[in-house]
């Protein structure tokens, strides 16, 4: 395996999961907007936001208080329901207890979600699931650096499974809704970016597994 390329790819994947999870987890702040706006490459992934007139006309405080965070509250707190079990349970109830399917998976991987920090009611929130992918990619990076090919492949397999069984099972529906209901380009672009990224990364994980782990299977 081309360790360096794998390492580069994984770092970039981590960045994208970190970016999208942060976007979905809570309201924007100056640091986060700086991270987007000061990096042309990232800003390029938010094409409508990049050219949004208000972004340059308004001061940051007005922009966040009167536009971006209002939109966030509408999309993630009030209007839409960013939880997997809402989409997967017949009765559309959020499974907030330990019986939540992703909670069991996090437990199995020895991760615990600090929900109060996340300010979400259940571990299957879109932001938490995306950050879980970030954590898995981080673990994969550790395995790459330790040249633990078996570990790398196991972690890729978990990522594939998590994408297949969880994120891709519901996030596309949610993200399409976000895109439709959004009132600012940031969340419109962010929803589209996240959706395309998940689809793209699922292909990537499959291809990589095929390329480097086939002989282990």
């Amino acid at each position, binding site marked *: 395996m081309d360790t360096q390329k794998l390492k580069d790819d994984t770092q970039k994947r981590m960045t994208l999961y970190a970016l999208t999870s942060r976007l979905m987890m809570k309201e924007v702040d100056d640091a986060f907007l700086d991270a987007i706006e000061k990096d042309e490459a990232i800003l390029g992934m938010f094409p409508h936001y990049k050219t949004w007139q208000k972004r340059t006309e308004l001061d940051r405080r007005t922009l966040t208080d009167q536009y971006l965070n209002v939109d966030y509250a509408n999309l993630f707190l009030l209007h839409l329901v960013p939880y997997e079990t809402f989409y997967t349970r017949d009765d559309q109830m959020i499974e907030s*207890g330990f019986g939540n399917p992703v*909670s069991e998976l996090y437990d199995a991987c020895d991760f615990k979600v600090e929900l109060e920090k996340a300010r979400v009611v259940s571990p299957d929130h879109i932001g938490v699931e995306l950050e879980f992918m970030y954590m898995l990619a981080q673990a994969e990076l550790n395995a790459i650096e330790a040249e633990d090919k078996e570990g790398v492949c196991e972690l890729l397999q978990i990522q594939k499974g998590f994408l297949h069984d969880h994120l891709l099972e519901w996030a596309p529906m949610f993200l399409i809704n976000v895109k439709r209901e959004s009132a600012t380009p940031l969340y419109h672009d962010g929803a589209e970016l996240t959706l395309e990224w998940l689809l793209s990364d699922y292909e990537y994980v499959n291809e990589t597994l095929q390329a480097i782990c086939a002989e282990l299977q």
Partner: protein
Amino acid sequence: MTKMNREQPTFVESRRSFLKGTAYTVAGATLATGVFKAVAETPAEAEETRFTATPKTLSFYPPLEQWDSFKELDGNDWKRGGVGRNGVQNEKNPDGIKVNEFMLVPTVCSNCEAQCGLTAWVEVGEYKRTKNPRDLRVKKYMGNPLHAGSRGRNCAKGYASLSQMYDPDRIPFPLKRAPGSKRGEGKWIRTTWDEAMATIGKKIHDTLKTGDEMSRKLFMYHVGRPNENGFGHRIPHSMGCDGYDSHTNICSAGARQGTLQWANDDRNSPDWANAKLIFLQSSHAADAGHYFQQSAGFIADARRKGAKLVVIDPRMSNSAGMADLWLPIWPGTEAALYLYLANRIVHEKDRNGNDLINHAFVKHWVNWDQLMKDKEQLALMVSKGYISKMPQDDSYESFVELLKELYAPYTKEFVVKECRIEGYEHKLDELFEMFIDAGDKIATFLWRSGTIGHRGGWMNTRAGFLTLALRGALRGDIGGTGMHHWHVVSVNGKGDAATVAGKRPPRVDVWNELAWPPEYPLSSYEMSFLLPHLLLDDEWRKKWNAKGLQVPEKLAVWVPRMYNPVWINPDGFRWIEALKREDKVELSFNLSPTWSETNWFCDYVLPVGLAGERHDQSSEPTKPAKILAFKNPALRVALEKNGWKPKDPTRATLEAHMAAGLGEIWEEVEFWANIMVHHVDPDGSLGVRKFWASKEDPSRAVTIPEWYQAAFDHIPNLREAAKRKYPNSKYPNYEMMRDMGTWLVEDNIYKPQERPLKKVGNKYIAHGHEFDESEVEKDEFGTLLVHDHVFGGKKPIGVEVDGKIVQGWHSLSGKLEFYSKWFAEWKWPEYAVPIYPRNEKERKEMVHLVTQVHHDFMQKENEFALNTIFRLPYNIHTRSVNSKHLMEISQNHNPVWISTADAKRLGIKRGDAIKVTIEDTVSGLESGYFIAMAVPTEGQMPGVLSCSHHAGRWKLKNAVEIPGFKHTLGVMGLGAPLYEMSMDGKVGTLKPKQGLDKGMQERRDSWQFKEFNKDLDNIWWDGLSGSWQNAVAAPHPDPIAGNHAWHQKVRIEKAGPDDQIGDIWVNYENNFKVYQAWRDKLTRPLAPGDKLRRPVHLKRPAVPLTLKAYSVDIKA
């Protein structure tokens, strides 16, 4: 949805090459929120458990057999990763998840009349470990899944029972006005229940012992929302007093008058769930009381099955917003609309050419034959121009012809003008189509709004029920509308068998003119909102005393019970004026769980319990069934079931609340039994004691188990089930209701009037009495009559319809009374059939049916009709002020809704302060003004304003110091801002001084219920956007139904620079003149020659009276 101008192909193309095309300078770790924590290992204590944090369905409740001990994870479980990660908390695993052991104690919500079932979830685990009663806590209130009406569900008010229970400002012990201080000074001392009972009991004793007629008129028990069925009535009744005032005349007495005329019943009772048309006048039922939540649930069931929803309301309520048809019409003209529907029903035919009138129903069940025989009445109708000539004969066919002529003038053109629906006339056709399509499955509950808003509001129900009757929808069949009394069961005051007397107290011999003044012989309920006016009106009293009556000049004891008339009644300054007068109200005490504006002017405030802190039986007609519900004091039940015993079993609720640290909180049943036995009549010489002393032990008061064992014994199927379930219990009825909280006495009660009249052998059985066949006579209309042993003359017990002897309605004819003969005989013949003035001339002649806010009176561009009586679904009139949850939602905010067109015309913008000046259209006098916030909206009919009278609370002090008590007692800190008041006998003012957020922050470290109130620093609302409009409103006693007609004619203008939202200025001297004008210009009082004070068949609610009490001889 965001509209993007252009899609960027580069972005789309690059979507598959994220990893290739982008270089990153930002490390993921700085972006990620970091909500994951790596955990080294799972604690050994983690285990598989049976706890499920999220039940499979929202309607989940533990099964009844687990109610004494149900274990559930603490609410923080989900935040902490669950027991799967942390294990269960115990000595070895202190960081595990806490498991609550709950006892579910069933009770009933006390926050509105719907009386939904509740369960108080008492955490008993800690108490079982420590045996310290102070470790008992109610952690939450949920619904009672066994309650057939509420079905385990509640509205916001039900769940708020918890925040009311642990309100930081709840009154912790009995308070007494400080000796030497005046009422309203706000100086209080701590007292005991025993001292209060001794002082009050002696006062009542001394009053009653004179034994004359007047002594029986000087006690007044004044009840707000009773939320119980009949116990309160027994208090004056057992003392031989005519001394009960309800709040009904500011609530629903208008609606009830129309129902009394139709069926001699109190109110109608719809079968929402099976209706095809939900026909609402106002937001009542679907998004506010009456019976909100239960009704809303059944309405939702019906709509799921395809029922249509119509809402008639000048304001777009939540219900109107989701209705199939919202029809805003000018308030007070509803009867015109209904008679338009009647006109079309009697004239038109269906697609098959059949009449729209349901002849089978109308011919058999409406008393048309009485009208057709009454030539005098028919002649009057001719003389009034209702019909052009006498009918050609007495036949049903001629009656139908009469209907056609009578209602022909109520055309579309007429109703469009009268109801002011120009521009959306087409809605009338839609309405009619929906009405007809629904056949006889039309459910309605005509109640507040129009029926209580207007002079003649009672004609709303009179005319509205006509349309239902014509279609057969008033038959009380499946999906239709029935009558109330078949759907309730009242036994709360019927524990007589547990007392020494063993039977009901006798009928009372006196008549109290302060509640039932001679100008209003037909008033549906007591004229309680005029109590201060009548007390202070010397001229009026002298006039009637000269005519031979004995009108009380004072009250010895006035007892508001969970009532706040100062704030909620019109003309609040007059109330304060009267309550301050110690020569007019010699002693007053409020049985009240919380501070209120009224308490401030009382001598004692005695804290009684809320929903889960008291016993009551209640029952409400929320569906065609008889549902009984039972309140329990949760902490007492939890203690007793765990082996705790009170020192005095007659005071167990008080002792339990003190032991558990809730405070010296008692309940009425135990309080009244004790005060009567030990203080009012300690030696039995007044004949009162025997009705309250225990049969088991005559030395003491009756206990709760004794009382309710006897009360529930009146319900045979409950009694039998209890015996089976608790075979070894001395009080099985009580224990079963304590454990279940509800009982379905009878379900699916449809068309009860068509049930055969019971007959055993040659005896008819009606209303619990037997009548030998030979005593029963049948009149020419088929009504079965017997001798009335109480009042003399004849009374009906059933009716023959279509050859069958059936129970019939409770009207004098046993049928629905299109023609109310008794009403005609009692001086109102021109309104004895459903009617409404057809032109301006008639509006002047038939003034009793014309609203005081008719558009005839609106002459200037800034004059409006003010609609005040819509409820907010999350507020109770006065008790929501002690719930932080409800106050956070409502914030004491009551803006004035104004249509956008009117606002634009007058240059008023959202948030503007406006001055609303009230003017009476009978006397022409001005009442004063209030300053309120304007909110222009399309959801408001032009020409009409809306401002709910559910907000606008105030207080005069933030807190009071009690000598000898180390803490200060907060006063309504969660919901009432601080005001400054002035009054000089003629003019009263109120001015806001401080928002409640600031007031609360000064003392946010609550001394009571600390843990529950640790979030008081989160109070962000100041409550300064409400104003006390009720005080400005002059009393408008309807000349017939006797209710206060709430709506007001107002003019508005922008507030001046010195005006502040919340300011009020009231000329209450003028308001007094307004009351007198309505009384003297509009009523038809008792006069020489009248022998009765009221028709004897019309129920005198609460206290049953003898013929002597009803009899009168008015001198010239």
